[in-house]
């Protein structure tokens, strides 16, 4: 019974993952216009405040842009066209997510490099392990430390 516990748990996890995957693969309902407007508002910077999006800000300028987004979507423009409309007027600065793919790759590469460095360290068995001894000679300090370690675990 106890032998089966982990396989059962993993099977349950995989089943759940499968359901999630099916949900993701299944074509989602096309976003409503209100959702598109909300999404656009989240991605545009409020021109007269700091670090907030048009969706979050309460300034009049943000409200005007929110209204324009809705009007332009109503007029049949695509979200890409609306985004381009604001970029043509404010510059790339208005986009809270930069267009350069570079900004997405840098963090991913950084983490992969980090994992790589530690994998290398692991395989090498540590960086220049002090002499060949597994640990310094057993002094009183070591004994007390091991004692504390045993109590703690």
């Amino acid at each position, binding site marked *: 019974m*106890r032998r089966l*516990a*982990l396989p059962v*748990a*993993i099977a*349950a*996890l995989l089943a*759940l993952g499968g359901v999630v995957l099916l949900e993701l693969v299944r074509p989602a309902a096309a976003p409503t216009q209100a959702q598109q407007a909300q999404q656009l508002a*989240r*991605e545009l*910077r409020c021109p007269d*405040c*700091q*670090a*907030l*999006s048009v969706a*979050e*800000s*309460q*300034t*009049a300028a943000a409200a005007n842009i929110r209204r324009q987004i809705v009007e332009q979507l109503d007029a049949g423009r695509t979200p890409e066209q609306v985004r381009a409309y604001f970029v043509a007027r404010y*510059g*790339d*600065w208005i*986009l*809270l*997510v*930069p267009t*350069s793919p570079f*900004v*997405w790759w*840098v*963090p991913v590469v*950084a*983490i992969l490099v*980090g*994992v790589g460095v*530690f994998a290398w*360290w*692991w395989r090498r*068995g*540590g*960086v*220049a*392990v*002090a002499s060949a001894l*597994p*640990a*310094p000679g057993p*002094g*009183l*300090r070591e004994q*007390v*430390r091991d*004692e*504390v*370690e045993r*109590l*703690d*675990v």
Partner: protein
Amino acid sequence: MIPTLGHLAVVIGLAATVYAAGAFILGGRSGDAAVLASARRAMYAAFALVAFACFAMVVSLLSHDFSVLYVARNNATTTPPFYSVISLWAALEGSILFWTLLASGWASLVLYRYRARLPALMPWVGATLALGTAFFFAVMAWPSDPFVRVTPIGLEGNGPNALLQNHPFMGLHPPLLYLGYTGMAIPFAFGMAALITRRTDEEWLAVVRRWTLVPWIFLTAGIVAGAWWSYAVLGWGGYWAWDPVENAALLPWLTATAFIHSSMVAERRGTLRTWTHALVIATFVLTLVGTFLTRSGVVNSVHAFTTSGIGAWFASAILVTLGVALALLVWRLPDLRDRRPPGAVVSRESAFVFNNVLFLGVTFAILFGTLYPVLVEATTGAKASVGAPWFNRVNAPIFVALLFLTGVGPALPWGGASWATVRERFAVPILSGVGVVVAAWALGVRDAAPLGIFGLATFVLVVMGDEVVRGAHSRARSRGETAPLAVLRLATRNRRRYGGYLAHVGICVMAVAIAVSATLGIDRTATLAEGETLSIGPYTLTYDKLVTEPLASDPRVIETRAELTLAGPQSGHMATALRDYPNSATAIATPVVRTALGEDLYVTLLGYNPDARTATLRIFINPLVMWIWTGGAIVAFGALFAIWPDRRRTAVAAAVAGA
């Protein structure tokens, strides 16, 4: 008179810290106890002097002494006393004065507590702390003198920044944050001293762990209080905007948290020692970067102080600190070799290593996102923005992975785990997590973020619960104690471990609250006429009337408020206002928040029409928000529990020291 004395105190303080730095270095080389004692006294004197300078500034603010430029710019005759006092840290020059007070306070505390201990390390700890404090005194003596006088003396001042006098939280959030920031100089000073004296053994690690956790608690509390301030004051219904200055506070917190974990590996296994040292350096340098970002005008932020000439000073300080610290580290690399090879791949240390890679990854990502506009402008001259959508998308997966490791780490033993152990420790937690996800789905939760976080948090909590139960069970059996007593004894006898668990519980609470509030909230905007009613969720909100009148506490401020009556799970009268401050171009929103265990009702007045008496309101239902603050408090309390002095452990430490 008083401002002149304050300025004099700053100048003498600079001399005292420079003397202390020199005397610590000389004493460190010669071992002369008298010289070292005089250096310590010079640092205590510097603390007393800057305390006096702060006192002089507070007196000037309270007495509205407009001959002082800082007072004329940040105070008015009508400013209430409370906001006059906290104006000490509300603008650039005063905040540096306050910063210096805290930095020299921490330095004096450490030098006093360790006056008779760690004789080899302490001179160099003192020298590092004295140099750091001297830098801030020098900033006040030259580019950012808080006591600059003006003539002719105006009859009225500008008053404090409107955003800062709108909520009493301003009295709490900056001091907590500054205590955290300034305190991170202590582990750095110990790190430098350990490298200089080649005492890079477990002794310094134990001290540095404790002295990282102390400011870490303040930094945690300061960040959470800052989020709360943003939520309660700015009126946008959120609490974290990925504003550059918010990020600046998070960066040293992340590296300090990484250090808290990696130092355990260094202490127990004798590996990751260079890495642990590097984290101490990174944490301190990032606190300086944070100061630089806030005070140099390089990035746009709600928190940015007015642009000033001190940017170059801070940039130079960052470069010197980074250069010297790195050079010391490289010089002592041979001392920091691993004491034994890393353990098996499935082991607690490997979980900790992954934890560190992810913490550093998220630190790097946030630093990169924050500085990306500066980077783009420096290379192409174009302006770019990086905002919440990018930060959320990049950081959310990393934080989720970290939450997962929170459960994995404690379940695995040091050195390596057998297959049987893995099976025993993980089966029940995984099944519980899956069960909770299915149950939440059945109850109608459909968003991926809360479902995933529910599952993960359950996994983590069950792993820890299992640990506690197993430990308490064996203790209860072997000593014949009752179960609650066994749990209590277990926790108080293993403070580090169980304090850590408590902090992890707090993290789980925060994670759930953040995921739920970010996805399951409701938000509506409506323009109502007097007497009109609006329904949102289970609430009905009636807009009674519009009132415009001067604020009782400061008649120069005109408040226009919409008075509301709320019915539903919470009910009663309330008002949300816009306040016109004479020194602010736009009116400042004063949102009203009704907090309950399950959700907050949050109403902001966006605008009003004085003729038609209509009010435009934005109403949010923010679920579980109070659990974000509560989770933060649990995290801080867990860390406090972990470092609370333990009589038995102190005895063991004394035995070690005596050996």
